[in-house]
Structure formats: structure tokens, C-alpha cells
């Protein structure tokens, strides 16, 4: 009998089931947000659907107790692995002040949490890439062994900030992993109109480090590649650019209509390769999941999401006067010191 793939790559049985659970939780929270949006209850959704597997593979290779992450707006599954919950994300979707990401100040999908080393992110794409490199620089300067991780879309890999940050990381062999979630589109523009090159990973050579293409629909493969990248970074081997090939299964956001730029056949075809489908088959085949276990997992997740929705919807809105808070930090000598 051959060792199952997840053990080969270094995951325990429990871990691989957990991985699936996070993916399912992310998908369920995401779908709930669309429902709430279509029901007119929340003004905006931006989705992780199609990218959960890539994010789960990446997230399990990191150590939330020390590694910094600078995620982008699709990284719902990743921040769940980093300790956020259905509740925190639904609070964010409703723009409520209890949301730990931004207290409802930012659109959903704009993650951040100091306590959990999730660096606050914004909308202008790519700005988080130098931030992650800066965190990696801090690790180098203080001789600490954390690594820093940043994710972004393939369209974003064209921004100047990607180039400048990757180059600096290459010069100093900083402990940072650049994780490109290539979902084939930047809103409506397909990769062949976004990228001069075939693979984003091809760009790594221009910065003196390794670029790896991985099937982003296969969480275990992503885990394998990411784990190697993390180990390399932690042991002084420098950065890696990992490109996970994925597909965005839904429109760009709740404001988009993807029928104007891609066929339904293309989307259906991609759905067949959905990482959730693949992971489920794997777990069933390996005997790590059966119908009963699956049903109870789904139920637990649904309960959690229902509870979170109810809680978030009922939570109070921000008091208008808080608009003026936190423009500047409250005096020197604050927590930043």
C-alpha cells in the first residue's frame, strides 16, 4: 500500500480533514454573503470561490503563531485558518464595529488583525507586497525566525509595487513567500491581455529566486510547494514566488456580471475541477470522511454560519461620532512602542 498523498507531503489525517473543513467553511461563508447581498442586506461581496484550495494549502504551511501574512481580498479561507471566524467575517460584511478587520470601516474582504499578524490591507492592488517584504526585513534585522507571506492576483503581478518589492527581497534573500493566485482574470481581462509572459512564476528569475507553478486546485500540492518555500525562507534560503493556477468561479464581485466577458461553458468546465470537489473525493477515497462525518461537518458549519449571520446582523452599527476616531494614534508611547 502506498502512503497517501497527504502523509507524503507531511500532513496528518486530522490536518487534512481540518483543511477540508476550512475550505468548506470559507465556501459556506462566501455563499452566505452572496445570499445576503442578493437579498439587499449587505451592499458588497468579493469572493474566494474557486481559490479555497490554494489558500488552504498555503495557510497550513504557515505558522500563525509567528508568521506574518499580508493577504488580499479573496483570502477568506486563509484568514479563517489564521483564526478569523464566520462571525468576524459576517460582522465585516455588515460593516459592524465589532469586526476585527476594520471595525466595519472597510469593505468586506479587506483583512487585518494585529493580534493575529494579519497586516491590514487596502483596495489599491499590490500595495501589500512591499509591506510583506518589510516584515521580512524586520525578521532579518532582528534575527527572528518568522517568515512573511503575501498573496495577490495575477493581474496585480503587473503592478510596479510587485516588481520593486520582489527585487528588494531577492537582493537580500529575505524570508518572504510571494503567492500569486492566478485565477485567469483581472475582472474582465483574461491573462493573455494581462501578462506578457506565460506564467507569473517566470518573473522570479528576474529577481534571482525560484518561481514555481502549482495546480492551485490541488491543496495538497500547494501545501507541498508552500512548505518547501516556507522552510527555505525560514532557513535563510530567501524568497520563492509560488503561482497557484486557479479559477474564479463567480463574478469578480457582487457588482460584476461575468457573462459579458466569459462563456458559461468555460465556467462550468472549471467548476468540475473545483478544489472542494477534488478534496472531498480524496478524503472519501482515503476513508478519512464518510457520509455521516460529512453531514455532521456540514451541519456544524451551517450552524456556525447561521449563528454568525444572526449575530452580525443584530450587532449594533458604529456610532456616528466614531467617524472621527483613529485618524491619528492616541499620543506617543502607545501600543506601537
Amino acid at each position, binding site marked *: 500500500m502506498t502512503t497517501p498523498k497527504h502523509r507524503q507531503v507531511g500532513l496528518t489525517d486530522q490536518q487534512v480533514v481540518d483543511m477540508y473543513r476550512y475550505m468548506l467553511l470559507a465556501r459556506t461563508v462566501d455563499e452566505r454573503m452572496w445570499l445576503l447581498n442578493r437579498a439587499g442586506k449587505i*451592499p*458588497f461581496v468579493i469572493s474566494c470561490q474557486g481559490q479555497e484550495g490554494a489558500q488552504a494549502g498555503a495557510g497550513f504551511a504557515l505558522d500563525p503563531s509567528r508568521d506574518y501574512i499580508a493577504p488580499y481580498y479573496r483570502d477568506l479561507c486563509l484568514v479563517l485558518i489564521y483564526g478569523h471566524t464566520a462571525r468576524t467575517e459576517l460582522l465585516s460584511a455588515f*460593516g*459592524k*464595529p465589532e469586526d476585527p478587520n*476594520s*471595525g*466595519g*470601516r*472597510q*469593505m*468586506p474582504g*479587506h483583512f487585518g488583525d494585529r493580534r493575529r499578524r494579519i497586516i491590514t490591507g*487596502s*483596495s*489599491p*492592488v499590490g500595495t501589500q507586497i512591499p509591506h510583506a517584504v518589510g516584515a521580512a526585513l524586520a525578521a532579518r534585522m532582528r534575527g527572528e525566525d518568522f517568515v512573511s507571506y503575501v498573496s495577490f492576483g495575477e*493581474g*496585480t503581478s*503587473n*503592478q*510596479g*509595487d510587485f516588481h520593486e518589492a520582489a527585487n528588494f527581497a531577492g537582493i537580500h534573500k529575505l524570508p518572504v513567500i510571494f503567492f500569486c493566485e492566478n485565477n485567469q482574470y*483581472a*475582472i*474582465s*481581462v483574461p491573462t493573455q*491581455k*494581462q*501578462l506578457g509572459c506565460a506564467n507569473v512564476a517566470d518573473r522570479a528569475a528576474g529577481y534571482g529566486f525560484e518561481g514555481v507553478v502549482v495546480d492551485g486546485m490541488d491543496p495538497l500540492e500547494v501545501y507541498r510547494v508552500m512548505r518547501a518555500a516556507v522552510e527555505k525562507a525560514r532557513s535563510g534560503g530567501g524568497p520563492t514566488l509560488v503561482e497557484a493556477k486557479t479559477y474564479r468561479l463567480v463574478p469578480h464581485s457582487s*457588482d*460584476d456580471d461575468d457573462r*459579458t*466577458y466569459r462563456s458559461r461553458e468555460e465556467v462550468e468546465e472549471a467548476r468540475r475541477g473545483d478544489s472542494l470537489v477534488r478534496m472531498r473525493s480524496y478524503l472519501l477515497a482515503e476513508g478519512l470522511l464518510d457520509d455521516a462525518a460529512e453531514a455532521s461537518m456540514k451541519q456544524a458549519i451551517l450552524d456556525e454560519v447561521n449563528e454568525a449571520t444572526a449575530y452580525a446582523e443584530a450587532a449594533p*452599527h*458604529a*456610532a*456616528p*461620532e*466614531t*467617524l*472621527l476616531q483613529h*485618524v491619528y494614534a492616541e499620543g506617543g508611547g502607545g501600543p506601537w512602542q
Partner: protein
Amino acid sequence: MAVKQYIEAIRDALFEEMRRDERVFVLGEDVGVRGGVFRVTDGLYAEFGEYRALDFPLTESAIVGVAIGAAAAGMVPIAEIQFADFIMPAVNQIISEAAKFHYRSNGDWNCPIVIRAPYGGGIHGALYHSQSVEALFTHVPGLKIVTPATPYDAKGLLKAAIRDPDPVLFFEHKKLYRSIKAEVPEGDYTVPIGRAAVVREGTDLTVISYGYTLHLALEAAGELAKQGFEAEVLDLRTLRPLDESAILAAARKTGKVLIVHEDNKVCGVGAEVSAMIAEHALFDLDAPIRRLAGPEVPAMPFSPTLEKAYMLTAQKVYDAMLELARF
């Protein structure tokens, strides 16, 4: 004349100018196949093809920089920045390059580009899909800044911008796109850059505004008339160059000035308008020059209560007008 939405007036201007002059083309993110995320450029791709409705990679600095270079080689590019908030990566190309192309070459080269960008809040766009960025650029000599408030002006000013030999930033308040409809002549006309317009006559106080908040001022002025105060309302339309004579005339006429804009106050357009009046019409004033502007916070939050607290409303404008009228 036909009744058109603000967004339709802009689209009409694009179609007409692209038919008139084959050097004119649009470039930007999602402007081609998708017709723009607000659908401003809808239909251009079908009529003018891939290159004249050019889907650009997600690179604002290159969108503007390539436009500058294409203009240098004889084209007339209209660059779309998807949201004004995302103009920041292009600031170097706009301020260091476009604004200085003509001056630094001693008049040898021109930079006839237009940069269109939807701006402004009130659409749940949160911090990064709601900003007003016009003041940053209004400071910069070499640029022209246009902010139409009506469908008529939007079409006429966009045509003027496209035909203008200098770089023009054309800011479209996204709350106006589909909320404002008005008569727009069929066919060709332009509205001159650099001219403000008195959009309401009055003798008791003067409100100076532009863009979305102009409509709040007009609404408030209607209400205020019921209290017996008649407001003169001036639409700046162009922020650089400011129409100094129109501003001073409007200020002198009533002696009481309120400037209203959504962009925050400090070093905003209102500061310049106020300073201009304080320098050239001080002794015609009967009251302090008031400014009503967005609060001094980095940008408006997503939270509905906070967005509401941020946004100006006809009520807030009315209150400020009434207070000034009674001064």
C-alpha cells in the same frame, strides 16, 4: 434635445469624438470587452475595435505613461482610471510628466491627454472607492481639472477636454452617473474649460460648489427661498484654472460666501476659493467666509452609519446656508 443621464452624456461625447477623429482612443482597465465597470465605455469596443477601446493591464502608472507616449507620437488618448482612488500609482506620471511636458520642453512638445476618473462617495464604496482627489491635482500648474455637475456640461466639457492641447483630468462624480438626467443637445458642442457658471441667481448669500454637492446646494437653496433667503449658486465646473472673475463677482454680489465640497477641507479647493476672495474682495464681505467640506479623516468608511456621517446632505448644506444668511 434629448433627456440624457450624466453617464450617457459622457458616453455620447466619447462616441462622437472617436468618430470625428480617429486619433482619439480610450485605454484603461476593463474599458474594452466589458465596457468599463460603470459601463461608461460600453459599445466602444464593438464599434472601434480592440485598440481604440484598449483593455489595459492593471497598471495605472503605465496607463497614464503609455497615454503620454502615444500622444507624443500623435494620438489623442483618453485614459480611464477605474476609480479616482486608484489614480495614486499614476501620480508620478501625471505630476512629473504630463503636467511638465510642455513647460520643460520650452513649448516644443504637447501632452494632449485626458484622464477620466469616477470619484466621490455615498455608494457604499468605503475608503477606497469613494475618495475625492481633485485638490491634490488642482494645486499643480500644468494640469487642467474639470468636474462637471450636469449631463450638458459633462458632454461639452469632455469634448473640450479631448480637443484641448494640455493634459486634462476629468473627474466624474459616480453618484451623478445615473441619478441626474437633463436635456442635452444632439450632436456637437463644447463647454469651455475654465469658466464657472451661475446656476441660480440670488442676492442674500453665495454658495460656490461643484460636482455632486452642487445639487445639494441647489436643493438647499430651493428650501432656503421658503425662508425668504435667495442664494446665488456658482458651479465652478473647472477647478484649474479657477474662474477668478466669476468667483469674485459671485462673492461681491452677496457679501456672504459658503463654499461646499465633499473633498476634505484642509488645503482643498475651498481653501483656494476662500483665499482668493480674502485677497481680492475682502471689503465686500459681510460675513466670514464659510467652508462646508468632508471631515478631516482619511476617507469615508463602509459602515452605513459612518458613511452617512461623512457625506454632505442637502440638510447639512441648508443648515450652513441658513446660518450664513442670518449672520
